[in-house]
């Protein structure tokens, strides 16, 4: 007998089927009068920054003004013209090390916790983590209240990876002092488009 | 309504005044209360220490003494909780489990006492004993997001001249825990000292609670730290001046 068979047999014997799956649609989950406002407040609370793109404002100019020092910028978004590295064209993900700014797209935001759904849409997803600073472009009408709504909405493509990001990488592992910028992006700026 | 008064062993031996106050208070409220002689211990100390079997005889004895009352009332939350929650698994056809009430519950929920009680012109800090909070529901546990309530506070507020406060960390354990206090002496003493310090920080002259074992731990801690704060069971305060 393989370990798989042994484990499954033991579980089958022990699992008595006694408990039905509870109803989950009746959860009285939090909703906000203005989800976008709540999303912005939560994002700031988790260490992120939210900026609105004004009508007729050029996204590249806005990013440039936010990160005047950034030299190496990585993005595969067609509207981003200031990028000098395209994560779709990078053969070895390690080459993205040293990226000052990564610019990616988020599908929707979650008001209750500042999460943004980022399905992998580039060959090297490392750009989402290895960049010193991360800019996420997020359509401002795409905000849901809570994670129940969020998980009804997520979808995967062929890359088979997706993540919720809520603010910059952080740690409090040294003496419980909160420090932004542990192993991944040291800052996250959400640009509402 | 026939009410049997259960006075747990350590209250009987060490805090007879708590028993007397219970009797006085219940009689004052017009309750027909009987103290059946020959009662000893509910068995909780042995069971919590890991010797539940030794509690079985005591549970049977308890059932004999109290089975025919409408309510069994005790001035001790942990003993009441043990009778209510553990007896049904110890003895067959247990009748007393559902009738056992801590005196705070009895006054608050059954008698629904609203009228004036005694007089106690002092600042009093409530000690929310763990088993009162988390096993009998005398107050809303600080861990839970449910509407806030506190039956002890409700009753104390019927006492004339009293100033009721609660400490920071209002329902953290005092560290008594029965045999825990012996096996884990260092942690137990530290918990007791931390707890009484928080009570003292409220400026209270008295700590009051529904369980004399917690209060015993707290007064020992007060002496250890040289704090001028006294402990009194909640029934003593409710009955004071009656």
């Amino acid at each position, binding site marked *: 007998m393989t370990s798989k068979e042994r484990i499954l047999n033991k579980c089958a*014997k022990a699992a008595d089927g006694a408990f039905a799956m509870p109803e989950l649609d009746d959860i009285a989950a939090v909703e906000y009068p203005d989800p976008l406002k709540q999303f912005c407040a939560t994002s700031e609370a988790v260490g992120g920054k939210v900026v609105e793109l004004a009508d007729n404002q050029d996204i590249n100019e806005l990013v440039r003004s936010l990160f005047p020092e950034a030299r190496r910028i990585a993005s595969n978004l067609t509207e981003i013209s200031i990028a000098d590295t395209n994560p779709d064209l990078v053969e070895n993900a390690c080459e993205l090390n040293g990226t000052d700014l990564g610019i990616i797209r988020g599908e929707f935001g979650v008001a209750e916790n500042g999460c943004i759904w980022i399905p992998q849409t580039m060959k090297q997803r490392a750009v989402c983590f290895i960049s010193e600073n991360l800019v996420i472009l997020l359509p401002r009408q795409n905000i849901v209240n809570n994670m129940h709504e969020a998980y009804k909405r997520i979808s*995967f493509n062929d890359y088979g*990876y997706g993540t919720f990001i809520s603010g910059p990488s952080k740690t409090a592992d040294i003496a419980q002092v909160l420090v932004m910028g542990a*192993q991944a992006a040291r800052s996250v700026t959400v640009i509402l488009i | 309504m026939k009410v049997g008064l259960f006075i747990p062993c350590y209250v009987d031996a060490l805090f007879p005044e708590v028993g007397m106050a219970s009797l006085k208070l219940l009689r004052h409220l017009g309750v027909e209360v009987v103290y059946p002689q020959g009662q000893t211990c509910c068995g909780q100390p042995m069971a919590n220490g890991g010797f539940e079997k030794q509690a079985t005889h005591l549970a049977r004895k308890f059932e004999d003494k109290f089975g025919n009352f409408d309510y069994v009332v005790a001035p001790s939350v942990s003993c009441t909780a043990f009778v209510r929650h553990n007896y049904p698994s110890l003895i067959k056809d247990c009748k007393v489990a559902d009738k056992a009430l801590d005196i705070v519950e009895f006054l608050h929920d059954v008698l629904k006492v609203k009228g004036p009680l005694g007089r106690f012109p002092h600042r009093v800090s409530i000690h929310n004993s*763990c088993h009162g909070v988390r096993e009998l529901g005398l107050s809303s546990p600080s861990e839970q*997001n449910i509407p806030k309530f506190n039956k002890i506070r409700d009753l104390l507020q019927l006492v004339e001249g009293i100033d009721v406060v609660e400490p920071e960390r209002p329902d953290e354990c005092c560290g008594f825990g029965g045999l825990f206090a012996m*096996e884990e002496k260092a*942690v137990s003493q530290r918990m007791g000292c931390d707890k009484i310090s928080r009570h003292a920080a409220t400026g209270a002259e008295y700590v009051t609670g529904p369980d004399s074992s917690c209060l015993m731990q707290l007064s020992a801690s007060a002496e250890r730290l040289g704090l001028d704060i006294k402990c009194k069971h909640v029934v003593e305060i409710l009955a004071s001046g009656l």
Partner: protein
Amino acid sequence: MSTFHSKSAKSFLKDEKYSSWHDKTFWSVRQKRDAMAEKLDEWEQLREKASRIKLHTLSHLDKYLEEFSGNAEKNGVKVHWAADAAEFNEIVFGILSSHGVKKLVKSKSMLTEECEMNPYLEARGIEVVETDLGERIIQLKGQKPSHIVMPAIHLNHDDVGELFERKGISDQPGNHDPSYLTYMARLSLRGEFLSADAGMTGANFGIAATGDIVVCTNEGNADMSTSLPKLQISAIGLEKIIPDYASLAVFQRMLCRAGTGQPSTTYTSHFRKARCEDGEMHIILVDNGRSDWLADPAHREILKCIRCGSCMNTCPVYRRSGGYSYSYFIPGPIGINLGMLRSARQHSGNLSACTLCRSCETVCPVKIGLAEQIYSWRQSLSGLGTFNRSKKLMSDAMSLVFNHQGLYDAATGAESVMNIVPRDWMPFGLRFPRKPFHKLVKEDDK
């Protein structure tokens, strides 16, 4: 009358300043958690749902395991099954050696701690680098975690600063500022990520309906570990499988709120496939005792645990004794229970570390009866032969006295009450009443 825990706790408490800091630090995490719970009117409803989803999944675990592994395989993932720690370690080593891996970067996993994987791989020439900052610190220090969520919490910034100086990670001697130290660790770990041949993660959840492995981190280290190397291995305990995304929503909302008092971890990552065409993703499902615990109705519900650590943070005994006062590598209420399941004989010395205050059960996001389980383990101690003799004598004496009215009357008569009440319980100045209540009331009734 002392136990492993009580002896270790006693020495922990000798340093009053440090032990106070420890207590306050974890209490503040509990308070952050409370603030999160209070912001959600549905918190108690979520706890109930979470508990019931887990009970349901466990009571159908064989079906969900098959669904999970079937879906993962459809996604091209290689699924392995490990009956115990030894088989798990062999599988990991087999995968790594067949790919010629010299260096493995990994995110935090209590499962790999449980299986003692790191020393196993290191003995076979594979360098293992922990990439969660706390785990990295204790790895460099040669220690075990003292808390499952904050593994290096027992060290202060000076300890870490000196460690980093010794290991050549920091370049400014005497600079022990946490921000600086975190930055230097970032630079050091960046080098490790870039030179690793494989990445490993644990798993917070496995989703049966999709075959996804879900990993929650604040640092992004699980994502760094798996987006640079092409080989990914994820280790998951059988009990971490949940049915679907609707269930995941419930747990995602609770895990971090309960654990650290944040509304979410920074990263909630869903791994479904190998990250590139020439990459590989392996999932190892680990039993290592879990199927036995599942078969034990008295303790099955321990498998509901999502490892948030909130029972430790709220436990008044954990806060005043620290993670190293427990003999099992997971401390606190959940650790007492897991240790007993792992080896009752070896870990019964932790059972004393509980006042039965039940704060743990009331905090627990999946409503595990942690104190109830400890109570029930205590009942089985005498059968194990590990019970405490003087405690048993005490209990026997109480039992004798309480069962015999004559003895009881004599014992409660006067100062002979000392015979039944332990000396340590006596407040210094407690005066023995002249008469017990049962005699006073007789006189009163006359």
